């Protein structure tokens, strides 16, 4: 991976905006096409853009493989826990137990916002993990 100065500067400046776009997609999942998976992929893409321009070893010092793995597993366990919360309150699985706001507002649609956030964390960690395994370890994990 040839590290050119232009690529490194542009990637460094663009990184927070891509992250912001990923958060926008995640949080507006109930109002526009998007949701957890798409937001997570965009966040993962931001990290991959950094890795492509600075080199995988540098990026791995800041986004460690171990932490990503723990985040992934915590995220899926909390997804199951959020679903089971519905059962504890007496409703079927994955029922909305948060208050439903008005239509078109950001804080509406019950539990979907929380589920979207959890899924986006898992997907971002997953996509970056796949990238690390294929590129850094050359598939030899």
């Amino acid at each position: 991976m040839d590290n050119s100065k232009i690529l490194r500067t542009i990637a460094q400046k663009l990184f927070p905006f891509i992250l912001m776009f990923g958060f926008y997609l995640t949080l507006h999942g109930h109002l526009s096409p998007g949701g957890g998976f798409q937001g997570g992929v965009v966040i993962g893409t931001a990290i991959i853009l950094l890795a492509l321009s600075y080199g995988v070893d540098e990026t791995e010092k800041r986004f460690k493989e171990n932490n990503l793995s723990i985040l992934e597993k915590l995220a899926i366990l909390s997804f199951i826990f959020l679903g089971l919360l519905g059962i504890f309150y007496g409703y079927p699985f994955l029922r909305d137990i948060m208050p439903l706001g008005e239509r078109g507002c950001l804080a509406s649609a019950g539990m979907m916002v929380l589920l979207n956030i959890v899924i986006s964390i898992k997907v971002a960690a997953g996509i970056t993990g796949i990238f690390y395994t294929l590129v850094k370890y050359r598939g030899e994990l």
Partner: protein
Amino acid sequence: MFAHLPILIIIFPLAIAFIIIFLFKKYSPFLSIIGVTVSFILLIRFAPFIHKGDELLYHLGGWQSPLGISLSIDGLSFFFSFTVLLVGIMVILYSIPEKKYNHNYYFLLLLLLSSMIGVIFTADIFNIYILFELVSIVTCLLVAYYQQRVALRASFNYLLISTVALSLFLLGVGSLYSMAGVLGISSISKQIPMIFAENPKIITVSLVLILTSMGIKSAMVPMHGWLPDAHSLAPSSVSAILSGVVVKLGIYCLIRLLYGLFIAGDYHGYFGSSLQLLMIFGAVNIIFGAMMALAQDDLKRMLAYSTIVQIGVILIGISINNTTGFEGALFHIFNHALLKSGLFFCAGIITLQTGKRKIKDFAGYGEKNPFVALCFTILSLGIIGIPPMNGFVSKFLVCLSAVEEEHPVFAIIIIIGSLMTAAYFFRVIQIFYSEPIQSDKNISTIDCEKSYLFQPRIFELSPIFILTGISIIMGIIPSLGLSIVSPAIKVIFSSLLPVLP
């Protein structure tokens, strides 16, 4: 809590799987046994409820039927999930003493069991696609677990063919959804007469696509090419669960979609001809599979071709429009799951103890380990279909229904298939109980001594013992097995009776 049981049966192995790879990596075998056994006990709690003939509908998230995804447990789902969990417990028991299986293996196995039960319980046609894709991804990972050269090739092949099959399935679902507008199976079946009146070609397109895709997944003969490689090159416990239940999942979806969707209304013209097609596929499966199995010299590959033969018997049983035939087919699904898993477990122990894979190298195995050789003999008698075993009951019911419906040629084909099955299994049994070749003992004494050191212990022998015991009991008292099958028959034929001429 009783009303929430469907989702808990699916979630519990899944949660245990993620807890295993997150926290308790060392205790993974025991946690996974606890997970699957608890699921099995929760499923058994449904038994008196299902026996009355009721159906349990569970709407996820509280969203009612046309809007949301629902799970439904009726007789057919209960029967298949009972089979899946029983074979699953045996597979986990068998793989406990193997030291090469780390926490990743148990994670994949629990994920596989959980998503299979998800496919069986769901009542939403798009959900079937998602969970079936999960089943095929996890199966590919399990087949390539030891990362040998040939296993990786088989796994890649299986991935390609399975993706083509499921994309065809989704195309069929899409064409049906374009006219119906809803996705639940019972909701679409109410709209099929209207769709047929407007645009009958859409029904043809979706029926053909769904039949083809489920044919590829359940190994009907022109589309069976993935099965011998994937089932013989996988580790033994993975082969057992693949041949036992994963292949039957395609048959479950076929039954559910044919009898649930495409039969509604006055529509039995297409339905009848698709049943005739399945009968011909079944007959070709039997003849082709038996001929290929006779030509094999690798033990696990021969068992994989034997699976193709038995799927042919099941397809003939399903497609004959008769209660007896259906009973025989479903009972044969249960029997074959038990018998074939037991045979693959025996093959695994034999391969570990002798260090070789070809049949002609197993000479004298009856003397080395009489228990495993005896169980292999009894289980193969079950697959051939000899009277005190359960295989006889199910094959007899299918032959009887073929004669009742005035198609005696299919009964003759099943009997010829059983004779050829007897030929290739008796060859193996004869080699077990014959004298070892003298020259082998003189030349490679070091190999003989090393292989005598591996003694299978209680964890590996007990699943074989339990499966053989259940098979013999089901053969002597067939009403025990048929009592599990009869609620499924009631479900299917209650939807069928108003339509048949």
